[in-house]
């Protein structure tokens, strides 16, 4: 049916949301035939002016045939133009000319009432009572009906009923007595109204302002306003428009509270727009009181409206500044503030124009316009207000604000060349407001004029759809003289700030949700300081206002503006992928963006200065490319990363976008299609190719060096003999950290070292040693490796293959589950005080957990003991070689101990500095403990210095190096130890350094402590009331698990010379390692997880209490 609808001049159905409406009276705008009355020909000649002003819609006050007793709102014939204004043809010419300039036209549909001169009324008063003709109007034999309806024109009307001597009955009128109300209970009336409406819409009119809409229908016992029957009428009118016309609009004039106006929008199927009457007086009130409250309060009372609806906002119009929608006190204040002379008042309002109301203060005029143009709604300008025209309070009714438009300083203000006496109204002539001082011509020539300011503001508003369509959110700075709000729609965010005071004002806003964004002042495109987490300060001059567009942070913007698509000739054009502009894009844009987003990228906090593709090569078996990327940081440091990549096109590319968007480095274009360059570990064929490289000892060349695979002696035993391809199907591991894992069936796991360094990776080195030499059974068997060779460096391990061990999860997860049950079981019980004292008093390794502890946490404590034993066995295995210099034990030298001491001191100093910096951001329950630790800083650091062990027997040997519960797998009732890579952030030589095995022991003890408190944090997040009762249980568990672990460890390692022989030396050394680890954790948590800071803080505090008090 769309094809049958008549199109409007606007293409966008929601054009009215972005419109700037200009209200004018034809009689007042321009007189072309010099009869003293404005006309359509005159208006036609001023369309260029309106277009240049930037308005988009002209709202014409009634121009129909009328006796003009209410300035045209008393219509005698809806289908003709008042002869003073021209002819119907003149109107059509004007309409087409407006449309040619992309201007829409809105006219009045005054259908609550007609003039008493209308033919319908003349016919009705003569028609017999009860006849359809008579019933075009509302008649009564008494003036007592509808007594609850208020009188609107209180200055002139005493009743809403007037006796008609011809009809011999009273007729109903809500306005002047010469304006009888139409009777919508008569279906013929609505038919007539629809006929009138179609007449104008067929001609091309874009919008209809429906006058006095709340009063269409009357019912006894009501106030005769906003009745359901009125809404039914409006819905029929709207349905008629929707059925036959496109992109037309109804604007409702309903001078009501917002909640009462809301039903006129219905479900978006009644009126498109409605005036927001109560906002207007409150803008003046807020300005005069220098307080935003009147505005924010009325907006708080304004309900949401359907998406296809819009408020019409205005500062002034052709009527009085209505004070119907304010309280009595507010009305009194407004009269006192804005109408010192009683002549300024009429009905329930103030009959003055904008500029006189604001004492002709340019800054106030600009301020109110800035609010009008940035509030949610469509702004409506009243003619002449764009040049600050004055009024004439000595003219009757509201004629003082309807004087001729002031075009020039010539006779009659350039409005007409008739003799002045013929003018429909005298022009304003006083020295301040007169046309000689205020006129369009003068302001056009003055670039600083209000007219030019308005033109610029209108143009600016039109650039931003957010003003017409965005949501509104008020900010609440403590200074109430400042009105501030955010407008937001799609990707446009604008912060508007207005100073309602005549003096400069400061304000601070909570803009933390826009952290990192950069406000740009919209008028001058001036960049302001970026928004942070702290309150954002702004200072405004008297009546100053700011519109600030919030731009994404420069970092984000830079990323967005960088080139990120590669272009190649076809899907096999690998060579071109790493050449010329593609290489430049990869190195300058794609990799610097992609790498920091990867979980395995280690140096996230360090800004990247550059990335270089240091070497790349295509694996023989398929299209997988192995890349080595060198990353240089702003600090001057650099890293190297290993990145296998592949390309996919068509459906495969789309699937990657959908299922693994993180894998995509960039888009790749070829004329024949779009694809992606992506991380090849997401490609099963690439994973198989890596496995085959190891299994088949394959070697292939890179641009600079070469890559080769090497299987271990154990690998053949790890690969199933039967259908190996099927049972080794690859799946990318989900738990990615500093490396990436690929699982091959349930048999093998390959670890890709993302941050490979020249030299043998300790994970491979130790795995190979423990598998092939020491034959330690509690690790995954080593299966082989892939190494990168080039002549300048030692071989670099890229991948390691291991046997996959069936398990019940890692030790961390397993212990947390145990602890969950533990807390669940004992949340309501209390730990006997002596239990804690007993555990705390015991020297490590000398006692076992109490019977009470075993009774309550037996399974976990048994596991801790098993883990202690396996740890000792691992240490013995690592120290088992006398011939392999990489593994043979060495004495625990004084130099080593000195270095250890220095390292702990440095770590402690770093932790203290960071703690001091971040103290204010810590949680309440942490900050006290942190402050206590800080207050003892000097004493503690001195204590650390004094606690050094200058010498000890015992030995240093290779250890795990990064030992905690996450590095062991629970396998039935036993544990398998994983990941001998050491701390990946440290250099290889550091990771291969020999230490006392107590370093691993300390790592695991800290992990028990972490597990106990992390599980409690998780538990009490659901049940905060149990927190304090469970803290002793956490302490008991930690102490008991540590005791069991240490006890088992010591029994298993007994007889070796690895540990210092004296208990006190063991204790001192273990304590030092514990402190080192706890300070390390503190730094980590302060940087990464402030919510977890409490755990290492407690650990440090407890250790210091034990060791240094």
């Amino acid at each position, binding site marked *: 049916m769309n094809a049958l609808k008549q199109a409007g001049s606007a293409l966008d159905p929601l054009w009215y949301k972005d419109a700037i409406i200009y209200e004018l009276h034809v009689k007042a705008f321009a007189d072309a035939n010099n009869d003293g009355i404005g006309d359509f020909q005159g208006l036609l000649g001023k369309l260029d002016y309106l277009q240049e002003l930037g308005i988009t819609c002209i709202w014409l006050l009634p121009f129909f045939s009328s006796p003009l007793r209410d300035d045209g709102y008393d219509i005698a014939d809806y289908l003709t133009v008042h002869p003073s204004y021209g002819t119907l043809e003149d109107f059509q010419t004007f309409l087409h000319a407006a449309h*040619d300039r992309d201007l829409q036209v809105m006219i009045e549909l005054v259908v609550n009432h007609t003039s008493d001169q209308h033919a319908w009324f003349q016919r009705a008063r003569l028609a017999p009572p009860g006849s359809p003709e008579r019933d075009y109007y509302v008649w009564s034999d008494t003036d007592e009906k509808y007594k609850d309806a208020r009188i609107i024109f209180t200055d002139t009307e005493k009743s809403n009923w007037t006796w008609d001597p011809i009809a011999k009955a009273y007729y109903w009128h809500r306005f002047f007595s010469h304006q009888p109300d139409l009777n919508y209970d008569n279906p013929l009336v609505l038919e007539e109204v629809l006929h009138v409406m179609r007449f104008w819409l067929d001609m091309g009119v874009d919008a209809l302002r429906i006058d006095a809409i709340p009063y269409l229908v009357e019912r006894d016992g009501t106030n005769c306003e906003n009745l359901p029957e009125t809404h039914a009428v409006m819905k029929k009118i709207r349905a008629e428009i929707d059925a036959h016309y496109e992109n037309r609009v109804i604007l409702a004039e309903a001078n009501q509270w917002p909640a009462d106006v809301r039903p006129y929008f219905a479900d978006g199927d009644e009126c498109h727009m409605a005036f927001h009457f109560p906002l207007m007086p409150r803008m003046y009130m807020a300005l005069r009181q220098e307080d935003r409250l009147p505005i924010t309060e009325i907006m708080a009372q304004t309900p949401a409206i359907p998406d296809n609806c819009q408020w019409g906002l205005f500062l002034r119009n052709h009527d009085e500044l209505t004070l119907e929608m304010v309280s009595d006190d507010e009305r009194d204040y407004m009269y006192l503030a804005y109408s010192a002379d009683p002549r300024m008042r009429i009905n329930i309002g103030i009959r003055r124009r904008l500029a006189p109301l604001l004492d002709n203060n340019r800054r106030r005029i600009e301020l109110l316009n800035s609010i009008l143009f940035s509030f949610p709604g469509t702004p409506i300008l009243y003619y002449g207000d764009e040049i600050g025209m004055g009024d004439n309070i000595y003219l009757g009714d509201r004629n003082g604000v309807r004087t001729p438009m002031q075009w020039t300083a010539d006779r009659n203000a350039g409005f007409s060349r008739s003799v002045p006496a013929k003018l429909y109204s005298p022009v304003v002539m006083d020295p301040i407001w007169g046309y000689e001082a205020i006129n369009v011509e003068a302001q056009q020539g003055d*670039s*600083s004029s209000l007219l030019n300011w308005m033109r*610029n503001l209108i*143009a*600016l508003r*039109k*650039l*931003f*759809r957010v003003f017409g369509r965005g949501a509104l959110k008020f900010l609440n700075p403590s200074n109430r003289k400042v009105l501030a709000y955010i407008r937001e729609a799609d*990707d*446009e965010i604008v912060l508007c700030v207005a100073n309602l005071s005549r003096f400069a004002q400061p304000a601070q806003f909570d803009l933390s949700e826009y952290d990192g964004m950069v406000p740009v002042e*919209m*008028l*001058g*495109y*001036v*960049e302001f300081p970026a928004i942070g987490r702290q309150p954002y300060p702004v200072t405004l001059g008297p009546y100053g206002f700011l519109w600030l567009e919030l*731009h994404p942070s420069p970092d984000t*913007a*830079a990323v*967005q*503006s*960088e*080139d*990120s*698509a*590669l*272009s190649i*000739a076809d899907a096999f054009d690998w060579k071109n992928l790493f050449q010329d*502009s593609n290489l430049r*894009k990869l190195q300058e844009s794609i990799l610097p963006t992609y790498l920091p987003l990867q979980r395995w990228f280690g140096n996230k906090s360090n800004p990247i200065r550059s990335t270089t593709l240091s070497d790349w090569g295509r694996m023989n078996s398929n299209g997988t490319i192995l890349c080595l990327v060198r990353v240089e940081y702003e600090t001057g440091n650099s890293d190297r990363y290993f990145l296998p990549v592949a390309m996919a096109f068509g459906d495969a590319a789309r699937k990657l976008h959908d299922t693994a968007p993180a894998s995509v480095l960039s888009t790749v*274009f*070829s*004329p*024949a*299609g*779009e694809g992606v360059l992506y991380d090849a570990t997401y490609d099963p064929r690439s994973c198989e190719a890596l496995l085959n490289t190891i299994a088949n000892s394959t070697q292939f060349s890179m641009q600079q060096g070469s890559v080769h695979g090497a299987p271990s002696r154990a690998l053949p035993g790890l690969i199933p003999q039967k259908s190996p391809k099927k049972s080794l199907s690859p799946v990318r591991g989900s738990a990615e950290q500093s490396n990436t894992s690929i699982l091959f069936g349930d048999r093998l796991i390959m670890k890709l070292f993302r941050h490979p360094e020249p030299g043998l990776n300790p994970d491979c080195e130790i795995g190979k040693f423990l598998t092939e030499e020491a034959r330690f059974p509690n690790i995954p068997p080593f299966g082989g490796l892939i190494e990168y060779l080039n002549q300048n460096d030692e071989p670099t391990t890229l991948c390691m293959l291991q046997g996959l061990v069936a398990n019940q999860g890692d030790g961390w997860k397993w212990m947390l589950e145990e602890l969950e049950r533990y807390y669940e079981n004992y949340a309501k019980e209390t730990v006997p005080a002596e239990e804690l004292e007993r555990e705390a008093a015991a020297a490590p390794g000398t006692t076992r957990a109490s019977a009470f502890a075993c009774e309550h946490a037996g399974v976990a404590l048994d596991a801790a003991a098993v883990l202690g034993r396996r740890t000792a066995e691992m240490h013995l295995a690592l120290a088992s070689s006398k011939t392999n210099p990489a593994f043979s034990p060495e004495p625990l030298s004084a130099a080593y101990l000195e270095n250890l001491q220095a390292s702990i001191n440095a770590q402690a100093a770093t932790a203290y500095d960071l703690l001091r910096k971040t103290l204010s951001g810590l949680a309440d329950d942490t900050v006290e403990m942190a402050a206590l630790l800080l207050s003892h800083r000097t004493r503690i650091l001195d204590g650390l210095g004094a606690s050094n062990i200058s010498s000890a027997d015992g030995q240093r040997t290779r250890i795990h190096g990064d030992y905690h519960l996450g590095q062991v797998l629970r396998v039935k009732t036993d544990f398998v130890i994983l990941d001998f890579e050491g701390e990946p952030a440290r250099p290889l030589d550091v990771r291969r350094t020999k230490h006392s095995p107590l370093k691993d022991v300390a790592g695991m003890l800290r992990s028990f402590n972490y597990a106990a408190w992390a599980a409690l944090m998780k538990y009490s997040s659901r049940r905060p009331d149990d927190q304090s009762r469970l803290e002793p249980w956490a302490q008991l568990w930690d102490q008991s698990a540590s005791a069991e672990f240490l006890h088992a460890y010591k029994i298993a390692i007994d007889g070796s010379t690895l540990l210092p022989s004296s208990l006190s030396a063991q204790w001192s050394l273990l304590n030092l390692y514990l402190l080192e680890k706890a300070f390390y954790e503190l730094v980590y948590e302060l940087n990464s997880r402030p919510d977890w800071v409490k755990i290492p803080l407690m650990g440090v505090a407890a250790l210091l209490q034990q060791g240094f008090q």
Partner: protein
Amino acid sequence: MAEMETLQESKTESSEIVPTDLLIAISAPPSGDTIVPTVAKLEQACKLLSTPCRVVLALPAETAQEIPAPLPGMEPNLPVARALHFVNYPLPAPNPGAIPWLPNASTYRALCQLARKLNARACTVLGTDLGCNRDSLTAEKLTLLMDPAIEGTFDLAMPLYATQPLDDLLNKSILYPLTRTLYGHRVENPLGNELQISSKMFAPLSAGASQDSTRQQGRLPWLATVAANRNLKICQVRLGTRRPASSDGIDLSDALGQLAGPLFLDMEDNAAFWQRIRGSHEVPTFGAAETFTEPSDTVDVRRMVDAFQLGESNLRDIWSLILPPVTLLELKKLSRLSADEFHMEDALWARIVYDFALAHRLRNIHRAHLFGALTPLYLGWVASYAVEINKSGIAAQQRVEQLARTYESEKPYLLSRWRWPDRFHP
């Protein structure tokens, strides 16, 4: 013989049309001796397409009748009729006074309407001289210009030509850097007329027909802008070397008006869009880069500097209506320099262009006079560019990139001037 259909817009019923994959359109009447080699080259290019498809060749009305059957000079077994089908279309009359080689918005409108009637997936528009003078434009390169939109990968493929450093300077100094800065796509020939558009572009390019013809006058089809506005995908295809079209008899001011004028108009229409764009990005570019082997032409810098100096003394009053005092001061200083030392900063030139765009919008002076006032300034920049290219040996492409980056870095100046065009400007 070649299959021939005459497609009259009003009579064509969509139900009668065989679905077409690609419409290839010749956008200007070819001469009798070029049409045959042109068709032959297209025939070869069609065979190289990634996927076989039905191709219709649209020729301006009357031209198609000139194609003899069988085509002379073709191999007898060349399956012309199978690969190409012919239609003709009414070529809109050129705008009176328009530079002949400028693309015509109404031509694109006609072609897009035709493509919609044919239900084509894409339309490749070509110039007329493929058969002669364009040996470097091989069938393989033409294929690159036929593939992108058929496969749905791109919605607009624009041409990229290798040019001599001193050729195509209006584009290099204004059109390219300005469109790139405004709309964020680095399309180096925003007015190239050998290109491909996808069906997504047909509707917006057809739409102008219903608008008032006076408002369409002097408009140019800024296809990359249309695509950017709709977030459509753009690529470039390297089509080899190209010598500039003849400028004999074309007044420079007139050329500036006909090229920059429509761009300035376009800026007004799309202000809300381009003011959101920050930075720019390359568009995927296909095909191998080529360079000219013969030496570049030389230009008489002295004459251009003289023209600039004359402009500075004669047009100062007019410039002062357009340019702020600080720019006028810079120009005054420049006017004292000899041809050898003449150097106009890129930032100065970019701001001048921005100020002229603003003056065009605000109608500070009559638009016809505006481009007359811009001409000596343009000559000043060209002189400066030529001196620099000759002296430093910097690659022209690098130099143009440098200018474009300056346009981008000066964009806040444009925004601030555009948003608040106060004459009281530094």
